[in-house]
């Protein structure tokens, strides 16, 4: 009896193995077909400047083997954890073989070590898979977050996070000194915070009100040019221009809002996309006002409430008796954008608890029901556009004062797409999700610049930043497969009687407009 059962099991295992081998061979074949012209052939100009085809069979073989073994492992392993381990192991093996093949600098111990580690990883994957006991119910992390202790931690976590952000530039300055910390505070700190703020601003329109806006960068541009023009023409200070830029951007938000009131879905997305392009084209072509492609330069730089950051008498360094360094301006900019971003977040969180915020979310869920309850949907949509645009305008005028130079090329569609993907990636409507997504997207791009060690593997001509869009696209595809509703896919109710239960994404609408 038991012999028959074990025989059956063996049969099953053998059948599975055969199926996995078949499918992985097919996957390899597809890879070979798809990547043959790209990987296996390279066109190089020869001495007479004529293109010669050079075969690169090793590349093709590597790609096919990698895909086939990934497919084989995925079919043989059932659990996510085991697959992740196996994938890591596969990458390690690939790195090991790759350095053996390509890199002149690789040592035998490095190659052997990585391949061995990779094989151990894959083996561990199989072990984890076999010993895995299927558990039902939410994972450990979700259960902890739902517990009272977890909730206290997450609410105090926000304050800890803000505290860490406030301390960030000073810690960096103390650790790396003025020259070394500039990159971290400017490229990571300020750049990420600008996109956090833009993401939060767009979140009002897309995440809360459910209106897909593909031209958000237009309001960023309106804010930047407002400050640039007002400051250079009338000599107004930043603190006067900031609210003016916000008001002007909000005005343009309403201007965009009116024609698109009746549009939904694809049509709305198209018109907002066109609006973004119109603003961009106006900036290029209205040379009298905007100076066209050349842009507006020598915009007054940021001052510390009237004290400049230049190396001069009465400047910031002079006044506080510090040695001159441009880092002080950057640190001030960091705190400025931190303040503006937190202002956006505070306002949004507050708005969500006000009738207007609830009306936005209701509008996203069902516009007809909103109208049957006496909600003026025209005003509700226009306020969403106007407030979203206003925060974009604030961020724009910050951008202008930071760069000291604006040109239309800073406001292309790719910026809109980046901001929108931050909102979608973060989880529409979730503030913390949007902030996380901005860190991943913008910080990730910056981090690619740090990956110098890859040059050892791929040669000096290799520049990881060139693969930015490729990695970005791959990451998006992976995200949409595994977390289609973003990092934070649950909705937090704006009011509750007994306990705040997160609303699962299966109920939450994504907006039709």
């Amino acid at each position, binding site marked *: 009896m038991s012999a028959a059962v074990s025989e059956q099991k063996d049969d099953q295992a053998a059948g599975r193995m055969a199926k996995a081998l078949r499918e992985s061979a097919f996957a390899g074949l597809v890879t070979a077909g798809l990547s043959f012209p790209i990987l296996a052939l390279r066109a190089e100009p020869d001495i007479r400047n004529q293109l010669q085809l050079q075969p690169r069979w090793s590349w093709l073989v590597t790609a096919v083997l990698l895909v086939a073994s990934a497919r084989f492992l995925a079919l043989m392993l059932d659990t996510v954890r085991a697959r992740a381990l196996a994938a890591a192991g596969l990458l390690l093996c690939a790195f090991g073989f790759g350095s053996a093949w390509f890199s002149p600098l690789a040592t035998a111990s490095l190659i052997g070590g990585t391949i061995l580690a990779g094989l151990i990883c894959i083996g561990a994957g199989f072990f984890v898979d076999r010993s895995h006991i299927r558990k039902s119910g939410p994972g450990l992390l979700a259960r902890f977050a739902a517990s009272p202790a977890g909730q206290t931690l997450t609410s105090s976590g926000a304050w800890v996070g803000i505290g860490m952000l406030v301390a960030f530039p000073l810690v960096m300055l103390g650790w790396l000194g003025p020259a070394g910390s500039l990159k971290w505070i400017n490229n990571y700190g300020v750049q990420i915070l600008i996109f956090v703020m833009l993401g939060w601003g767009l979140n009002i329109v897309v995440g809360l009100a459910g209106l897909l806006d593909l031209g958000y960068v237009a309001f960023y541009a309106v804010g930047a040019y407002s400050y640039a023009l007002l400051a250079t023409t009338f000599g107004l200070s930043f603190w006067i221009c900031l609210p003016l830029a916000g008001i002007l951007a909000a005005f343009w938000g309403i201007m965009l809002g009116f024609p698109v009131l009746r549009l939904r879905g694809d049509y709305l997305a198209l018109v907002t996309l066109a609006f973004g392009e119109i603003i961009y084209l106006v900036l290029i072509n209205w040379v009298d006002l905007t100076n066209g492609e050349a842009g507006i330069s020598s915009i007054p730089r940021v001052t510390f409430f009237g004290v400049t950051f230049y190396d001069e008498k009465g400047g910031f360094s002079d006044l506080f008796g510090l040695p001159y360094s441009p880092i002080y301006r950057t640190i001030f900019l960091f705190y400025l954008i931190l303040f503006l971003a937190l202002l956006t977040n505070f*306002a949004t969180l*507050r*708005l969500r608890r*006000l*009738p*207007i915020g*609830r*009306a936005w*979310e*209701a509008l*996203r*869920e*069902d516009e*007809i*029901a*909103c*109208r*049957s*309850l*006496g*909600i*003026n*949907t025209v005003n509700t949509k226009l*306020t969403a556009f106007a407030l979203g645009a206003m925060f974009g305008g604030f961020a724009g005028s910050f951008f202008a004062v930071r760069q000291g130079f604006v040109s239309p090329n800073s406001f292309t569609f790719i910026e809109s797409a980046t901001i929108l993907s931050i909102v979608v990636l973060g989880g529409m409507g979730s503030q913390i999700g949007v902030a996380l997504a901005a860190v991943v997207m913008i910080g990730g791009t910056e981090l690619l610049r740090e990956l110098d060690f890859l040059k050892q593997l791929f040669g000096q001509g290799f520049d990881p930043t060139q693969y930015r869009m490729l990695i970005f696209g791959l990451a998006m595809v992976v995200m949409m497969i595994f977390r289609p509703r973003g990092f934070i896919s649950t*909705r937090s*109710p*704006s*009011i*509750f*009687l*007994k*306990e*705040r*239960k997160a*609303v*699962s994404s*299966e*109920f*939450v*609408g994504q907006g039709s407009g």
Partner: protein
Amino acid sequence: MRWQTDPLLQVEHLTMRFGGLVAIDDLSFTAGRGDITALIGPNGAGKTTVFNCITGFYKPTEGRLAFARTGIAAPAGVDALTNTGARFAYEPSGDIYLLERMPDFEISAQARVARTFQNIRLFAGMTVLENLVVAQHNPLMQASGWTVMGLLGIGGYARRESEAVDKAKSWLDSIGLLERADDPAGDLPYGDQRRLEIIRAMCTDPVLLCLDEPAAGLNPRETAMLNELLLTIRDEHNTSLLLIEHDMAVVMQISDHVVVIDYGVKISDGTPEFVRNDPKVIAAYLGVSDEEVEQVESEIGADGGAR
């Protein structure tokens, strides 16, 4: 007959055309204050179109929808208002609204006519409580100083919001859903969603509540609970009801007045007893051709006598 002595809503010569299709043809009826008026008819008779005209989702091609929110609408007053081109008038005898001139959200916000939908339209991703708070949007908006004061945290918004929550709680308690206040509305069972949509409409403090097939898809126990709820609304909340319904158990048990339409034309109008015995209604429901009406009429007469 209250629908004759104290009409709340007077539908006069209502016509709605969609291109060449005449969905409603010169329909006139009245709904009495404090009545439960049922609008019945076979499938495709134009009932929901009438609803959409009354609640402003459609602009009627022709006709007048005079709504006397308070007091009694004197015919002279309604005619005078019609001639001015205004949407409403506060007459000494009562406030009159011409619904055909008003956009949908104003009909709910100002004339105080609320509605539900045939296919339930709850805010599925918002909690039960949030649904009821959103329904009180306009008074809360005012309390938050059109967002400005609320954003700055001044004014009595917090107090007003807790009053709104109390109101929501009392309604939830009345239908036994208080325990589920913090759950997403989309997670409720179907029957509870129907009743939640009704109390959400009630949170707008309507004078007239229009229900589009409230008993559709309910089991007998849920239907009984629904009847109880509708009678409570009529008797204790001074709200008149206008309902479209196919379930004759609901129509005959609770309604005070029944209007029957078929192919956009009114074919009968009166008390439930009158309509039940009206041969035209029976003909419309059973699909008898016009030539046979007389024959059916005599048969029904005998049947009615036996009852």
